[in-house]
């Protein structure tokens, strides 16, 4: 059914999106945040979180050298600690995909490219298409596209749907992550609606934010998206991935997010095949906490490489 929904069909699909009660959502999250994650469970959670990171650099001033360093870090998070997992992917602009691909070689770490005029999405569709094709031609394993928020807020759901479906068609075997930029959406009801729309249009992953706008991956937004994924799974048996990005910079938050995944979706999603953290500074905090958990002592931030 990819890309095949007519306007009336799309309307009736979106009419089924349940309303979201913000206060109830906050209460549910408070219950999860009140849980105590300690000992072996904490260690396992930290390792899991590390393995789920999309290590990201998305700056205008990015250089091939910086991307290569990032790719090295992705494979060697902290060699002083034995047996650490690698991150899941390195996330860069299309122009850096070739560099990253070469640097990562056959490490198994994926290259994700942002696309469709990231971060604003303010470009004609033809440009977005070329943007995506460029990344794919250079070997991107995953495409992180942004939606046209203006069209979505204006109620032009068909346009947004068609755009996602068209990019999905270009992707082939590459996995498509659809970025909503929830900081620009108005309410949790809208977050739910775009989640249902993007999933119907063929998203492999749904992703909160570009990291360029605040607020980004807040708990209520992520909870709402997880519920959409769960409902889709219950209806069709198809798993959709989730990627919160922006704002999750501490281990504590990351572990709470993982617990939310476990409670809302189930343990099947606790793998980097289905869950990612889009983050640049999270990795080092996870590493610090990991070392603390192993040795009982906090180590100075200067012991961990920044890139």
């Amino acid at each position, binding site marked *: 059914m990819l890309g095949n929904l007519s306007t009336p069909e799309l309307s009736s699909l979106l009419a089924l999106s349940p309303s979201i009660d913000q206060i109830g959502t906050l209460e549910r999250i408070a219950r999860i945040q009140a849980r105590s994650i300690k000992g072996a469970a904490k260690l396992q959670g930290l390792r899991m979180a590390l393995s789920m990171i999309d290590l990201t650099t998305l700056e205008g001033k990015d250089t091939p050298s910086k991307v290569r360093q990032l790719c090295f870090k992705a494979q060697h998070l902290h060699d002083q600690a034995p047996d650490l997992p690698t991150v899941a992917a390195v996330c860069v602009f299309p122009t850096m995909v070739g560099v990253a691909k070469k640097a990562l070689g056959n490490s198994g770490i994926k290259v994700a490219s942002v696309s469709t005029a990231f971060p604003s999405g303010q470009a004609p569709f033809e440009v977005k298409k070329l943007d995506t094709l460029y990344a794919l031609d250079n070997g991107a394993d995953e495409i992180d596209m942004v939606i046209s928020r203006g069209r979505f807020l204006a109620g032009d759901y068909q346009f947004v749907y068609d755009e996602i479906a068209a990019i999905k068609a270009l992707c082939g075997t590459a996995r498509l992550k659809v970025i909503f930029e929830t900081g620009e959406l108005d309410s949790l009801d809208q977050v739910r609606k775009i989640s249902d729309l993007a999933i119907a249009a063929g998203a492999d992953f749904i992703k909160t934010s570009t990291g360029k706008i605040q607020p980004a991956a807040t708990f209520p937004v992520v909870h709402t998206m997880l519920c959409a994924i769960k409902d889709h799974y219950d209806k069709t048996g198809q798993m959709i991935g989730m990627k919160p990005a922006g704002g999750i910079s501490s281990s504590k938050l990351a572990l709470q997010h993982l617990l939310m995944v476990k409670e809302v979706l189930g343990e099947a999603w606790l*793998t980097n095949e289905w869950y990612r953290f889009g983050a640049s500074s999270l990795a080092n905090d996870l590493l610090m906490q990991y070392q603390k958990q192993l040795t009982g002592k906090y180590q100075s931030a200067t012991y961990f490489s920044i890139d």
Partner: protein
Amino acid sequence: MSENNWNLEPSLESVAQVQIKPQYELFINGKWQAPLAATYFATVNPADEKHLAHIAQANAADVDLAVKAARAAYDNVWSQLSGAARGKYLFRIARLMQEKARELAVLETLDGGKPIRESRDIDIPLACNHFFYYAGWADKLQEAFPGQQMEALGVAGQITPWNFPLLMLAWKVAPALACGNTVVLKPAETTSLTALKFAEICQEAGLPAGVVNIVTGYGDTGAALVAHPNVDKIAFTGSTAVGKQIQKACIGTPKKVTLELGGKSANIILEDAPMDQAVEGIINSIFFNQGHVCCAGSRLFVQESIAEQVIAKLKFRLQSIYVGNPLDKNTDIGAINSKKQLETIEEYLDIGLAEGAEIYQPDCTLPSPGFYCKPTIFTDVAQSARIAQEEIFGPVLTIQTFRTMEEVVQKANNSPYGLAAGVWTANGARIFGLSSQLQAGVVWANTYNKFDPASPFGGYKESGFGREGGRHGLSAYLQFKN
């Protein structure tokens, strides 16, 4: 798949700061006094069945001493104080309770079996807030009831239940004292410890002797208090059966009575409800405090079109409910308060099965020893089934479906009880439409089991009469002169 298994480790709250004496006496006239008959009973931790302490058992003669002390304190001290002076004591008590919040929370959990998360985050903070709230009213009674003259009733006899021991004490003691009454309180026999700790707090606060007296014991102690001719007011929270006995005992006496009794409250989910939040609301409505909640939403009504989905979601949600040691910070459902109550609940589970309802319990292992019950939902339940009509007072939910508003209102109201109800819908007009038709003292919209000192609480029909909490709660402890 196995590498995805991620289980939390037990995270036990420390019991180090809690001092439990081997034996507790009666708190009468500001002093600890041994019961005249020198009889004591044991209190155990329902989570592991271990002995906690021996507690004095008051007989009618002990109750008489307590009432005399309360009367003397009323005549000579408390009724002579200004509202501001009474408020000062109440504020002091509230602050001391706050300072000892952690100790009180652990004690409540040890003695009653409720999860530490609830006693820490709900019971104790709310109990403190009730004292703060009524402390504020003590010198503003004229503003509470403008243009009216009023005075205190005198000696209030108060009997509290075992489900929210300290919180129910606060609901009763705080307004009574704020209005100028003195108190003889009888806590439930399985959960006396926080009331006795409260007596220590009264001492520490310098509360004049006899203003608060605590007589521990069983039902006969409560009956002696109810029967005492020098008691001016009886406030009782507990079962409807005992409430009826109290009401009969008070007929023909000048005693004023307020009763907060049982319930079989309807929680109604309409098809346009915020679905995931409604499911969470169901969890909160029936599994809060092991379902030992008089206003628990024990009868769930789901609109037919979404019933299948809601039940599926509920079953999935139950998989991440942790049942176990109440001192574990991750526990959602702790221990059933007593062996007797566990037997009652298990009897109802058998009744439900015999009535042909379909049972669902999540796959979880229960600790042993200790009194535990899995969270349970019954589907395919008939309106006439006993499990849908009688209060079970445990983590047991019955589910019925409905098609029309008229049908659900009829079914929800078809109960001798009328304590609370829940309505879940995104449609504001339906909230007002339904809540105006439901015969219940409290109606929650898109939430459940929310309590606040400023909000009155009480029932319709056999769920009792009188209101506790809010400005309304004051009038239960005052008489008016116009």
